[in-house]
Protein backbone atom coordinates (compact mmCIF):
# COMPACT_ATOMS: atom_id res chain seq x y z
CA UNK A 1 0.00 0.00 0.00
CA UNK A 2 2.77 2.46 0.72
CA UNK A 3 5.64 3.13 -1.59
CA UNK A 4 8.95 1.52 -0.81
CA UNK A 5 10.50 4.60 0.72
CA UNK A 6 8.12 7.28 1.83
CA UNK A 7 4.56 8.21 2.33
CA UNK A 8 4.74 11.77 1.22
CA UNK A 9 1.94 13.07 3.39
CA UNK A 10 1.27 12.44 7.02
CA UNK A 11 -1.39 9.91 7.58
CA UNK A 12 -4.33 11.18 9.63
CA UNK A 13 -5.30 7.59 10.24
CA UNK A 14 -2.01 7.09 12.03
CA UNK A 15 -2.18 10.26 14.05
CA UNK A 16 -5.69 9.56 15.18
CA UNK A 17 -4.93 6.06 16.25
CA UNK A 18 -3.40 7.11 19.54
CA UNK A 19 -5.03 7.33 22.90
CA UNK A 20 -7.70 9.83 23.80
CA UNK A 21 -6.67 13.25 24.91
CA UNK A 22 -8.58 15.40 27.32
CA UNK A 23 -9.37 18.96 26.39
CA UNK A 24 -6.83 20.75 28.57
CA UNK A 25 -3.83 19.44 26.72
CA UNK A 26 -2.54 16.96 29.25
CA UNK A 27 -2.99 13.39 28.27
CA UNK A 28 -4.76 10.74 30.12
CA UNK A 29 -3.33 7.29 29.93
CA UNK A 30 -0.82 5.07 31.66
CA UNK A 31 2.47 6.65 32.66
CA UNK A 32 5.88 5.15 33.44
CA UNK A 33 5.06 3.09 36.52
CA UNK A 34 7.83 0.85 37.81
CA UNK A 35 6.45 -2.42 36.35
CA UNK A 36 6.16 -0.75 32.93
CA UNK A 37 9.68 0.65 33.11
CA UNK A 38 10.90 -2.78 34.21
CA UNK A 39 9.15 -4.35 31.24
CA UNK A 40 10.77 -1.77 28.95
CA UNK A 41 14.22 -2.48 30.38
CA UNK A 42 13.70 -6.23 29.92
CA UNK A 43 12.76 -5.59 26.28
CA UNK A 44 15.89 -3.47 25.85
CA UNK A 45 17.96 -6.16 27.56
CA UNK A 46 16.82 -9.05 25.41
CA UNK A 47 16.82 -7.21 22.10
CA UNK A 48 20.57 -6.66 22.08
CA UNK A 49 22.63 -9.43 20.56
CA UNK A 50 25.66 -8.41 22.66
CA UNK A 51 23.73 -9.09 25.87
CA UNK A 52 22.76 -12.58 24.74
CA UNK A 53 26.34 -13.29 23.68
CA UNK A 54 27.65 -12.28 27.09
CA UNK A 55 25.09 -14.49 28.84
CA UNK A 56 25.94 -17.38 26.55
CA UNK A 57 29.66 -16.90 27.14
CA UNK A 58 29.09 -17.04 30.88
CA UNK A 59 27.46 -20.44 30.59
CA UNK A 60 30.17 -21.74 28.26
CA UNK A 61 32.97 -20.47 30.50
CA UNK A 62 31.37 -21.83 33.68
CA UNK A 63 30.73 -25.28 32.22
CA UNK A 64 34.14 -25.36 30.50
CA UNK A 65 36.03 -24.43 33.65
CA UNK A 66 33.94 -26.84 35.69
CA UNK A 67 34.87 -29.73 33.41
CA UNK A 68 38.51 -28.70 33.27
CA UNK A 69 38.65 -28.32 37.00
CA UNK A 70 37.00 -31.70 37.52
CA UNK A 71 39.66 -33.32 35.40
CA UNK A 72 42.46 -31.39 37.12
CA UNK A 73 41.14 -32.23 40.56
CA UNK A 74 40.92 -35.88 39.62
CA UNK A 75 44.54 -35.89 38.41
CA UNK A 76 45.61 -34.15 41.59
CA UNK A 77 43.83 -36.60 43.84
CA UNK A 78 45.36 -39.56 41.99
CA UNK A 79 48.78 -38.05 42.50
CA UNK A 80 47.95 -37.34 46.10
CA UNK A 81 46.93 -40.94 46.67
CA UNK A 82 50.51 -41.96 45.88
CA UNK A 83 51.99 -39.05 47.84
CA UNK A 84 51.27 -38.96 51.57
CA UNK A 85 52.42 -35.33 51.85
CA UNK A 86 49.89 -34.16 49.27
CA UNK A 87 47.21 -36.23 50.96
CA UNK A 88 47.99 -34.45 54.21
CA UNK A 89 47.62 -31.09 52.51
CA UNK A 90 44.22 -32.05 51.18
CA UNK A 91 43.11 -33.23 54.58
CA UNK A 92 44.20 -29.89 56.04
CA UNK A 93 41.91 -28.11 53.59
CA UNK A 94 38.84 -29.84 54.85
CA UNK A 95 39.14 -32.90 52.71
CA UNK A 96 36.46 -32.20 50.12
CA UNK A 97 38.14 -31.13 46.90
CA UNK A 98 35.19 -31.70 44.62
CA UNK A 99 32.66 -29.32 46.13
CA UNK A 100 34.37 -26.25 44.65
CA UNK A 101 34.54 -27.68 41.13
CA UNK A 102 31.20 -26.39 39.72
CA UNK A 103 32.03 -22.79 40.67
CA UNK A 104 35.62 -22.82 39.50
CA UNK A 105 34.81 -20.50 36.58
CA UNK A 106 33.31 -17.86 38.85
CA UNK A 107 36.20 -15.39 38.45
CA UNK A 108 35.41 -15.19 34.75
CA UNK A 109 31.66 -15.20 35.19
CA UNK A 110 31.96 -12.19 37.48
CA UNK A 111 34.10 -10.40 34.92
CA UNK A 112 31.65 -11.07 32.09
CA UNK A 113 28.48 -10.27 34.03
CA UNK A 114 30.11 -7.33 35.78
CA UNK A 115 31.00 -5.93 32.36
CA UNK A 116 27.42 -6.55 31.29
CA UNK A 117 26.34 -4.39 34.23
CA UNK A 118 28.70 -1.63 33.12
CA UNK A 119 27.58 -1.84 29.49
CA UNK A 120 23.90 -1.79 30.35
CA UNK A 121 24.19 1.82 31.44
CA UNK A 122 27.35 3.09 29.72
CA UNK A 123 25.97 2.10 26.30
CA UNK A 124 22.94 4.30 26.97
CA UNK A 125 25.29 7.26 27.17
CA UNK A 126 27.74 6.30 24.44
CA UNK A 127 24.95 5.67 21.90
CA UNK A 128 22.70 8.59 22.91
CA UNK A 129 19.92 6.17 23.88
CA UNK A 130 19.94 7.83 27.32
CA UNK A 131 18.15 10.84 25.84
CA UNK A 132 15.28 8.62 24.71
CA UNK A 133 15.25 6.61 27.91
CA UNK A 134 15.18 9.59 30.25
CA UNK A 135 12.78 11.61 28.12
CA UNK A 136 10.31 8.74 28.61
CA UNK A 137 11.19 8.41 32.31
CA UNK A 138 12.23 11.92 33.38
CA UNK A 139 12.39 10.94 37.03
CA UNK A 140 15.32 8.72 35.97
CA UNK A 141 15.53 6.63 39.17
CA UNK A 142 12.84 4.14 38.03
CA UNK A 143 14.87 3.43 34.89
CA UNK A 144 18.04 2.96 36.95
CA UNK A 145 16.26 0.73 39.45
CA UNK A 146 14.73 -1.29 36.61
CA UNK A 147 18.15 -1.85 35.07
CA UNK A 148 19.43 -2.89 38.49
CA UNK A 149 16.65 -5.45 38.87
CA UNK A 150 17.23 -6.76 35.34
CA UNK A 151 20.97 -7.19 35.69
CA UNK A 152 20.88 -8.56 39.25
CA UNK A 153 18.15 -11.11 38.49
CA UNK A 154 19.71 -12.20 35.23
CA UNK A 155 23.18 -12.51 36.72
CA UNK A 156 21.87 -14.56 39.63
CA UNK A 157 19.85 -16.89 37.42
CA UNK A 158 22.56 -17.32 34.79
CA UNK A 159 25.24 -17.98 37.40
CA UNK A 160 23.05 -20.43 39.29
CA UNK A 161 22.03 -22.26 36.11
CA UNK A 162 25.55 -22.46 34.74
CA UNK A 163 26.92 -23.60 38.11
CA UNK A 164 24.35 -26.36 38.08
CA UNK A 165 25.23 -27.25 34.48
CA UNK A 166 28.93 -27.28 35.38
CA UNK A 167 28.05 -29.58 38.28
CA UNK A 168 26.21 -32.01 36.03
CA UNK A 169 29.16 -32.10 33.64
CA UNK A 170 31.68 -32.50 36.48
CA UNK A 171 30.02 -35.34 38.36
CA UNK A 172 30.81 -38.12 35.82
CA UNK A 173 34.35 -36.82 35.34
CA UNK A 174 35.02 -36.78 39.07
CA UNK A 175 33.39 -40.18 39.31
CA UNK A 176 36.10 -41.57 37.04
CA UNK A 177 38.67 -40.64 39.64
CA UNK A 178 36.61 -42.03 42.45
CA UNK A 179 35.71 -38.60 43.79
CA UNK A 180 32.13 -38.09 44.83
CA UNK A 181 30.29 -34.82 44.26
CA UNK A 182 26.80 -34.54 45.66
CA UNK A 183 25.10 -31.55 44.04
CA UNK A 184 22.33 -31.76 46.60
CA UNK A 185 24.61 -31.54 49.62
CA UNK A 186 24.17 -28.51 51.81
CA UNK A 187 27.69 -27.28 51.01
CA UNK A 188 27.05 -27.62 47.25
CA UNK A 189 23.82 -25.68 47.55
CA UNK A 190 25.54 -23.06 49.67
CA UNK A 191 28.34 -22.71 47.11
CA UNK A 192 25.79 -22.27 44.33
CA UNK A 193 23.70 -19.69 46.13
CA UNK A 194 26.56 -17.65 47.60
CA UNK A 195 28.42 -17.52 44.31
CA UNK A 196 25.28 -16.56 42.39
CA UNK A 197 24.55 -13.78 44.87
CA UNK A 198 28.16 -12.70 44.63
CA UNK A 199 28.10 -12.47 40.83
CA UNK A 200 24.79 -10.60 41.00
CA UNK A 201 26.47 -8.18 43.40
CA UNK A 202 29.38 -7.70 41.01
CA UNK A 203 26.91 -6.96 38.20
CA UNK A 204 25.22 -4.35 40.42
CA UNK A 205 28.61 -2.76 41.13
CA UNK A 206 29.26 -2.81 37.37
CA UNK A 207 25.97 -1.02 36.69
CA UNK A 208 26.86 1.60 39.29
CA UNK A 209 30.30 2.09 37.73
CA UNK A 210 28.77 2.37 34.25
CA UNK A 211 26.34 4.98 35.55
CA UNK A 212 29.03 6.99 37.29
CA UNK A 213 31.65 6.79 34.54
CA UNK A 214 29.29 6.70 31.52
CA UNK A 215 31.98 5.15 29.40
CA UNK A 216 32.22 1.45 28.56
CA UNK A 217 36.00 1.12 28.51
CA UNK A 218 36.44 3.22 31.64
CA UNK A 219 33.74 1.35 33.52
CA UNK A 220 35.07 -2.10 32.64
CA UNK A 221 38.64 -1.06 33.45
CA UNK A 222 37.48 0.17 36.87
CA UNK A 223 35.75 -3.14 37.45
CA UNK A 224 38.88 -5.08 36.46
CA UNK A 225 40.92 -2.78 38.67
CA UNK A 226 38.72 -3.46 41.66
CA UNK A 227 38.38 -7.22 41.24
CA UNK A 228 41.64 -8.29 39.60
CA UNK A 229 44.31 -5.63 40.02
CA UNK A 230 43.63 -4.37 43.54
CA UNK A 231 43.91 -7.82 45.23
CA UNK A 232 47.28 -8.41 43.60
CA UNK A 233 48.51 -4.87 44.23
CA UNK A 234 47.45 -5.03 47.88
CA UNK A 235 49.41 -8.24 48.25
CA UNK A 236 52.53 -6.76 46.73
CA UNK A 237 52.54 -3.52 48.66
CA UNK A 238 54.35 -4.09 51.96
CA UNK A 239 52.76 -3.02 55.21
CA UNK A 240 50.15 -4.33 57.60
CA UNK A 241 47.57 -1.87 56.39
CA UNK A 242 47.31 -3.44 52.95
CA UNK A 243 47.28 -6.96 54.36
CA UNK A 244 44.30 -5.93 56.46
CA UNK A 245 42.65 -3.86 53.73
CA UNK A 246 42.89 -6.74 51.29
CA UNK A 247 40.31 -8.67 53.32
CA UNK A 248 37.79 -5.95 52.67
CA UNK A 249 38.02 -6.03 48.90
CA UNK A 250 34.73 -7.28 47.39
CA UNK A 251 36.45 -10.20 45.63
CA UNK A 252 37.71 -11.57 48.94
CA UNK A 253 34.30 -11.92 50.54
CA UNK A 254 33.31 -15.16 48.79
CA UNK A 255 35.69 -17.53 50.57
CA UNK A 256 34.65 -16.45 54.09
CA UNK A 257 31.00 -16.71 53.03
CA UNK A 258 31.35 -20.28 51.73
CA UNK A 259 33.87 -21.61 54.28
CA UNK A 260 32.74 -24.59 56.31
CA UNK A 261 34.46 -23.19 59.34
CA UNK A 262 36.00 -19.83 59.96
CA UNK A 263 39.55 -19.73 58.61
CA UNK A 264 41.93 -17.70 60.76
CA UNK A 265 42.97 -14.31 59.44
CA UNK A 266 39.92 -13.94 57.21
CA UNK A 267 36.63 -12.18 57.83
CA UNK A 268 33.80 -13.92 59.65
CA UNK A 269 30.97 -14.91 57.34
CA UNK A 270 28.65 -12.20 58.67
CA UNK A 271 31.40 -9.61 58.31
CA UNK A 272 32.04 -10.67 54.74
CA UNK A 273 28.33 -10.40 54.02
CA UNK A 274 28.23 -6.87 55.37
CA UNK A 275 31.35 -5.87 53.44
CA UNK A 276 29.95 -7.21 50.17
CA UNK A 277 26.63 -5.49 50.90
CA UNK A 278 28.40 -2.19 51.49
CA UNK A 279 30.33 -2.60 48.23
CA UNK A 280 26.98 -2.83 46.45
CA UNK A 281 24.91 -0.31 48.38
CA UNK A 282 27.38 2.57 48.42
CA UNK A 283 28.18 2.70 44.68
CA UNK A 284 24.55 2.05 43.73
CA UNK A 285 23.27 4.88 45.94
CA UNK A 286 26.00 7.20 44.70
CA UNK A 287 25.17 6.30 41.10
CA UNK A 288 21.48 6.93 41.70
CA UNK A 289 22.12 10.34 43.23
CA UNK A 290 24.53 11.35 40.48
CA UNK A 291 22.21 10.11 37.74
CA UNK A 292 19.42 12.23 39.17
CA UNK A 293 21.61 15.31 39.48
CA UNK A 294 23.70 15.29 36.34
CA UNK A 295 22.58 16.36 32.89
CA UNK A 296 21.96 13.53 30.46
Amino acid at each position, binding site marked *: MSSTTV*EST*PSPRGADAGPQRSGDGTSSGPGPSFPRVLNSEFI*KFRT*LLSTLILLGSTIVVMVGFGALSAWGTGQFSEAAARDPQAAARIAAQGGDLAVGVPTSGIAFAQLILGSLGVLLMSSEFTTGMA*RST*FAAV*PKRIPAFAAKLVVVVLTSFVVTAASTLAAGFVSVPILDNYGLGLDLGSSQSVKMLIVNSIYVAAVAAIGLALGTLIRNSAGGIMSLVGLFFVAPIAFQLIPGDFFVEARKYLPGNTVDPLTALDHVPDTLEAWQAGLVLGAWVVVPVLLAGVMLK*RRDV
Partner: protein
Amino acid sequence: MIEARGLTKVYGDKTAVAGVNFTVEAGRVTGFLGPNGAGKSTTMRMIMGLDRPTSGSVTVNGSPLTKHAAPLRDVGALLDAKAVHTSRSAYNHLLAMAATHSIPKKRVHDVIEMTGLAEVARKKVGGFSLGMGQRLGIAAALLGDPQTVILDEPVNGLDPEGVVWVRNLVKYLASEGRTVFLSSHLMSEMAVTADHLIVIGRGRIIADAPIQEIITGKGQGRTRVRTDQPDRLMQLLAGTGVSVEVQERELLEVKGLDPRQIATAALEHQVMIYELTPLQASLEEAYMELTKDEVEYHSLITTGADPVEAGGK
Protein backbone atom coordinates in the same frame (compact mmCIF):
# COMPACT_ATOMS: atom_id res chain seq x y z
CA MET B 1 2.00 25.11 25.58
CA ILE B 2 5.64 25.54 26.53
CA GLU B 3 6.65 28.39 28.81
CA ALA B 4 10.21 29.40 29.64
CA ARG B 5 10.77 31.91 32.41
CA GLY B 6 14.24 33.25 33.09
CA LEU B 7 15.59 30.00 31.72
CA THR B 8 19.37 29.91 32.12
CA LYS B 9 22.00 27.27 31.52
CA VAL B 10 25.63 27.82 32.35
CA TYR B 11 28.33 25.28 31.50
CA GLY B 12 31.47 26.20 33.40
CA ASP B 13 32.25 29.75 32.34
CA LYS B 14 30.10 29.57 29.21
CA THR B 15 26.52 30.73 29.28
CA ALA B 16 24.58 28.63 26.78
CA VAL B 17 21.16 30.08 27.54
CA ALA B 18 20.95 33.45 29.25
CA GLY B 19 17.67 33.97 31.07
CA VAL B 20 15.25 33.53 28.18
CA ASN B 21 11.51 34.05 28.37
CA PHE B 22 9.22 32.72 25.72
CA THR B 23 5.93 30.98 25.21
CA VAL B 24 5.21 28.40 22.56
CA GLU B 25 1.48 28.39 21.90
CA ALA B 26 -0.64 25.44 20.85
CA GLY B 27 -2.21 25.25 17.43
CA ARG B 28 0.62 26.69 15.40
CA VAL B 29 4.10 25.78 14.29
CA THR B 30 6.66 27.75 16.24
CA GLY B 31 10.10 27.87 14.70
CA PHE B 32 13.16 28.13 16.86
CA LEU B 33 15.81 29.71 14.73
CA GLY B 34 19.36 30.54 15.50
CA PRO B 35 22.94 30.06 14.40
CA ASN B 36 24.86 26.98 15.51
CA GLY B 37 25.75 27.19 19.18
CA ALA B 38 23.03 29.74 19.90
CA GLY B 39 21.43 27.59 22.59
CA LYS B 40 18.60 25.89 20.66
CA SER B 41 19.42 22.31 21.59
CA THR B 42 20.26 23.21 25.18
CA THR B 43 16.88 24.91 25.53
CA MET B 44 15.14 21.86 24.08
CA ARG B 45 17.01 19.49 26.38
CA MET B 46 15.92 21.61 29.33
CA ILE B 47 12.30 21.39 28.17
CA MET B 48 12.67 17.61 28.13
CA GLY B 49 14.14 17.55 31.63
CA LEU B 50 17.42 16.12 30.37
CA ASP B 51 19.47 19.17 31.34
CA ARG B 52 18.77 20.91 34.59
CA PRO B 53 18.40 24.69 34.26
CA THR B 54 21.04 26.66 36.18
CA SER B 55 18.21 29.02 37.07
CA GLY B 56 14.73 29.81 35.87
CA SER B 57 12.23 27.23 34.74
CA VAL B 58 10.52 25.75 31.74
CA THR B 59 7.15 24.08 31.84
CA VAL B 60 4.99 22.10 29.45
CA ASN B 61 1.26 22.58 29.97
CA GLY B 62 2.01 24.23 33.28
CA SER B 63 4.45 21.87 34.92
CA PRO B 64 8.04 20.73 34.39
CA LEU B 65 8.30 17.47 32.48
CA THR B 66 9.69 15.66 35.54
CA LYS B 67 6.31 16.27 37.23
CA HIS B 68 4.21 14.86 34.38
CA ALA B 69 2.38 11.63 35.09
CA ALA B 70 2.78 10.32 31.53
CA PRO B 71 5.57 12.34 29.88
CA LEU B 72 5.62 10.43 26.60
CA ARG B 73 1.90 11.04 26.13
CA ASP B 74 2.33 14.76 26.79
CA VAL B 75 5.56 15.58 24.99
CA GLY B 76 7.28 13.83 22.13
CA ALA B 77 10.72 14.95 21.14
CA LEU B 78 13.27 14.35 18.46
CA LEU B 79 16.39 15.77 20.07
CA ASP B 80 19.00 13.82 18.22
CA ALA B 81 18.51 11.46 15.31
CA LYS B 82 20.85 8.98 16.94
CA ALA B 83 19.34 8.88 20.42
CA VAL B 84 19.01 5.16 19.86
CA HIS B 85 21.15 2.15 20.71
CA THR B 86 22.83 1.38 17.39
CA SER B 87 22.64 -2.40 17.82
CA ARG B 88 18.90 -2.55 18.37
CA SER B 89 16.32 -2.64 15.61
CA ALA B 90 14.02 0.32 15.04
CA TYR B 91 11.00 -1.81 15.93
CA ASN B 92 12.50 -3.02 19.21
CA HIS B 93 13.59 0.50 20.08
CA LEU B 94 10.06 1.79 19.65
CA LEU B 95 8.64 -1.27 21.43
CA ALA B 96 10.84 -0.62 24.48
CA MET B 97 9.92 3.07 24.49
CA ALA B 98 6.24 2.20 24.18
CA ALA B 99 6.43 -0.31 27.04
CA THR B 100 7.22 2.45 29.56
CA HIS B 101 3.74 3.89 28.99
CA SER B 102 1.85 0.71 28.02
CA ILE B 103 1.42 2.08 24.52
CA PRO B 104 -0.06 -0.75 22.45
CA LYS B 105 1.95 -2.52 19.75
CA LYS B 106 -0.54 -1.30 17.19
CA ARG B 107 0.62 2.25 17.81
CA VAL B 108 4.24 1.16 17.27
CA HIS B 109 3.24 -0.28 13.91
CA ASP B 110 1.27 2.85 13.11
CA VAL B 111 4.17 5.25 13.68
CA ILE B 112 6.48 2.97 11.71
CA GLU B 113 3.98 3.06 8.85
CA MET B 114 3.50 6.83 9.16
CA THR B 115 7.20 7.59 9.02
CA GLY B 116 7.88 5.23 6.12
CA LEU B 117 10.12 2.93 8.13
CA ALA B 118 8.25 -0.32 7.47
CA GLU B 119 10.98 -1.64 5.16
CA VAL B 120 13.80 -1.16 7.64
CA ALA B 121 12.03 -1.51 10.97
CA ARG B 122 13.64 -4.87 11.70
CA LYS B 123 17.14 -3.73 10.81
CA LYS B 124 19.72 -2.45 13.25
CA VAL B 125 19.62 1.31 13.68
CA GLY B 126 23.41 1.50 13.37
CA GLY B 127 23.08 0.93 9.64
CA PHE B 128 20.54 3.69 9.13
CA SER B 129 21.25 6.75 7.01
CA LEU B 130 20.87 10.09 8.71
CA GLY B 131 17.50 10.50 7.03
CA MET B 132 16.27 7.13 8.31
CA GLY B 133 17.53 8.06 11.77
CA GLN B 134 15.49 11.26 11.59
CA ARG B 135 12.40 9.31 10.61
CA LEU B 136 12.91 6.96 13.54
CA GLY B 137 13.36 9.95 15.85
CA ILE B 138 10.11 11.42 14.56
CA ALA B 139 8.38 8.06 14.97
CA ALA B 140 9.55 7.95 18.58
CA ALA B 141 8.36 11.52 19.13
CA LEU B 142 4.88 10.65 17.86
CA LEU B 143 4.66 7.35 19.74
CA GLY B 144 2.63 8.68 22.66
CA ASP B 145 0.38 10.76 20.40
CA PRO B 146 1.58 13.77 22.38
CA GLN B 147 -0.05 17.15 22.69
CA THR B 148 3.36 18.81 22.38
CA VAL B 149 5.90 17.88 19.73
CA ILE B 150 9.48 19.12 19.89
CA LEU B 151 11.72 18.53 16.91
CA ASP B 152 15.37 19.59 16.90
CA GLU B 153 16.58 20.06 13.32
CA PRO B 154 14.14 17.48 11.93
CA VAL B 155 14.96 17.99 8.27
CA ASN B 156 18.68 17.44 8.75
CA GLY B 157 19.77 14.76 6.34
CA LEU B 158 16.35 14.19 4.84
CA ASP B 159 15.90 13.91 1.12
CA PRO B 160 13.69 16.53 -0.56
CA GLU B 161 10.70 14.22 -0.33
CA GLY B 162 11.33 13.80 3.37
CA VAL B 163 11.65 17.55 3.86
CA VAL B 164 8.22 18.09 2.32
CA TRP B 165 6.86 15.25 4.41
CA VAL B 166 8.11 16.83 7.66
CA ARG B 167 6.74 20.20 6.57
CA ASN B 168 3.29 18.74 5.96
CA LEU B 169 3.44 16.68 9.12
CA VAL B 170 4.21 19.59 11.46
CA LYS B 171 1.55 21.75 9.82
CA TYR B 172 -0.92 18.94 10.18
CA LEU B 173 -0.02 18.41 13.85
CA ALA B 174 -0.45 22.12 14.55
CA SER B 175 -3.77 22.16 12.72
CA GLU B 176 -4.97 19.50 15.17
CA GLY B 177 -4.33 21.98 17.96
CA ARG B 178 -1.02 20.55 19.10
CA THR B 179 1.94 22.60 20.22
CA VAL B 180 4.72 22.21 17.67
CA PHE B 181 8.19 23.53 18.44
CA LEU B 182 10.70 23.10 15.67
CA SER B 183 14.32 24.20 15.61
CA SER B 184 16.41 24.85 12.59
CA HIS B 185 19.27 26.92 11.38
CA LEU B 186 17.76 26.78 7.88
CA MET B 187 15.89 30.00 7.37
CA SER B 188 14.34 28.97 4.09
CA GLU B 189 12.80 25.93 5.78
CA MET B 190 11.34 28.08 8.54
CA ALA B 191 9.93 30.54 6.02
CA VAL B 192 7.69 27.85 4.56
CA THR B 193 6.97 25.82 7.69
CA ALA B 194 6.62 28.04 10.74
CA ASP B 195 3.77 30.36 11.66
CA HIS B 196 5.62 31.96 14.51
CA LEU B 197 9.31 32.45 14.98
CA ILE B 198 11.53 32.67 18.03
CA VAL B 199 15.02 33.75 17.06
CA ILE B 200 17.85 33.00 19.46
CA GLY B 201 21.43 34.17 19.31
CA ARG B 202 24.15 33.63 21.89
CA GLY B 203 21.62 32.32 24.37
CA ARG B 204 19.30 35.33 24.17
CA ILE B 205 15.97 35.74 22.43
CA ILE B 206 16.37 38.40 19.76
CA ALA B 207 12.96 38.10 18.15
CA ASP B 208 9.68 36.47 19.06
CA ALA B 209 6.96 37.31 16.56
CA PRO B 210 4.78 35.97 13.77
CA ILE B 211 6.97 35.05 10.84
CA GLN B 212 5.36 37.66 8.59
CA GLU B 213 6.20 40.36 11.10
CA ILE B 214 9.81 39.32 11.22
CA ILE B 215 10.11 39.41 7.46
CA THR B 216 8.43 42.78 7.05
CA GLY B 217 9.22 44.05 10.52
CA LYS B 218 12.27 45.96 9.51
CA GLY B 219 10.06 48.48 7.70
CA GLN B 220 11.91 47.81 4.53
CA GLY B 221 8.94 47.05 2.31
CA ARG B 222 10.01 47.73 -1.24
CA THR B 223 8.08 47.85 -4.45
CA ARG B 224 9.30 47.10 -7.92
CA VAL B 225 7.80 49.30 -10.57
CA ARG B 226 8.12 49.10 -14.34
CA THR B 227 7.10 52.11 -16.30
CA ASP B 228 7.90 53.58 -19.69
CA GLN B 229 8.42 57.00 -18.06
CA PRO B 230 10.85 56.27 -15.24
CA ASP B 231 12.19 59.82 -14.93
CA ARG B 232 8.70 61.35 -14.70
CA LEU B 233 7.61 58.78 -12.08
CA MET B 234 10.74 59.41 -10.02
CA GLN B 235 9.88 63.09 -9.84
CA LEU B 236 6.30 62.31 -8.84
CA LEU B 237 7.31 59.91 -6.08
CA ALA B 238 10.10 62.03 -4.62
CA GLY B 239 9.47 63.01 -1.02
CA THR B 240 10.75 62.56 2.49
CA GLY B 241 11.40 59.04 3.53
CA VAL B 242 11.08 57.82 -0.02
CA SER B 243 13.98 56.45 -1.97
CA VAL B 244 13.86 55.35 -5.57
CA GLU B 245 16.53 53.31 -7.17
CA VAL B 246 16.85 52.81 -10.91
CA GLN B 247 17.66 49.20 -11.56
CA GLU B 248 17.21 48.95 -15.30
CA ARG B 249 16.09 51.43 -17.92
CA GLU B 250 12.39 51.05 -17.14
CA LEU B 251 12.65 49.39 -13.76
CA LEU B 252 12.54 51.21 -10.44
CA GLU B 253 12.69 49.98 -6.89
CA VAL B 254 10.79 52.18 -4.47
CA LYS B 255 11.22 52.24 -0.72
CA GLY B 256 8.97 54.17 1.67
CA LEU B 257 5.72 54.01 -0.29
CA ASP B 258 3.26 51.19 -0.56
CA PRO B 259 2.08 49.95 -3.99
CA ARG B 260 -1.27 51.72 -3.62
CA GLN B 261 0.38 55.11 -3.08
CA ILE B 262 2.60 54.54 -6.11
CA ALA B 263 -0.36 53.54 -8.28
CA THR B 264 -2.38 56.52 -7.09
CA ALA B 265 0.42 58.93 -7.99
CA ALA B 266 0.85 57.31 -11.39
CA LEU B 267 -2.87 57.38 -12.12
CA GLU B 268 -3.23 61.05 -11.20
CA HIS B 269 -0.47 62.04 -13.60
CA GLN B 270 -1.31 59.62 -16.36
CA VAL B 271 1.97 57.68 -16.13
CA MET B 272 1.55 54.17 -17.33
CA ILE B 273 3.03 51.48 -15.12
CA TYR B 274 3.13 47.90 -16.30
CA GLU B 275 4.47 46.15 -13.26
CA LEU B 276 3.89 46.80 -9.61
CA THR B 277 5.35 44.13 -7.38
CA PRO B 278 5.64 44.39 -3.61
CA LEU B 279 8.98 43.00 -2.51
CA GLN B 280 9.67 41.68 0.93
CA ALA B 281 12.94 41.11 2.61
CA SER B 282 13.54 37.41 2.63
CA LEU B 283 13.70 35.64 5.94
CA GLU B 284 17.39 35.27 5.26
CA GLU B 285 17.81 39.02 5.11
CA ALA B 286 15.69 39.59 8.20
CA TYR B 287 17.58 36.90 10.02
CA MET B 288 20.99 38.17 9.01
CA GLU B 289 19.93 41.59 10.16
CA LEU B 290 18.73 40.24 13.51
CA THR B 291 21.62 37.98 14.23
CA LYS B 292 24.53 39.87 12.76
CA ASP B 293 25.88 40.69 16.21
CA GLU B 294 24.90 37.39 17.73
CA VAL B 295 26.62 34.82 15.59
CA GLU B 296 28.75 32.62 17.76
CA TYR B 297 31.19 31.57 15.10
CA HIS B 298 31.76 34.22 12.49
CA SER B 299 32.74 32.62 9.27
CA LEU B 300 35.59 34.23 7.44
CA ILE B 301 33.80 34.04 4.14
CA THR B 302 30.61 36.00 4.25
CA THR B 303 27.82 34.14 2.62
CA GLY B 304 25.65 36.40 0.55
CA ALA B 305 21.96 35.76 0.80
CA ASP B 306 20.09 36.46 -2.37
CA PRO B 307 16.95 38.52 -1.93
CA VAL B 308 13.86 36.47 -2.57
CA GLU B 309 10.60 37.85 -3.75
CA ALA B 310 7.77 37.63 -1.31
CA GLY B 311 5.26 34.96 -2.03
CA GLY B 312 7.63 33.75 -4.65
CA LYS B 313 6.57 30.16 -4.33
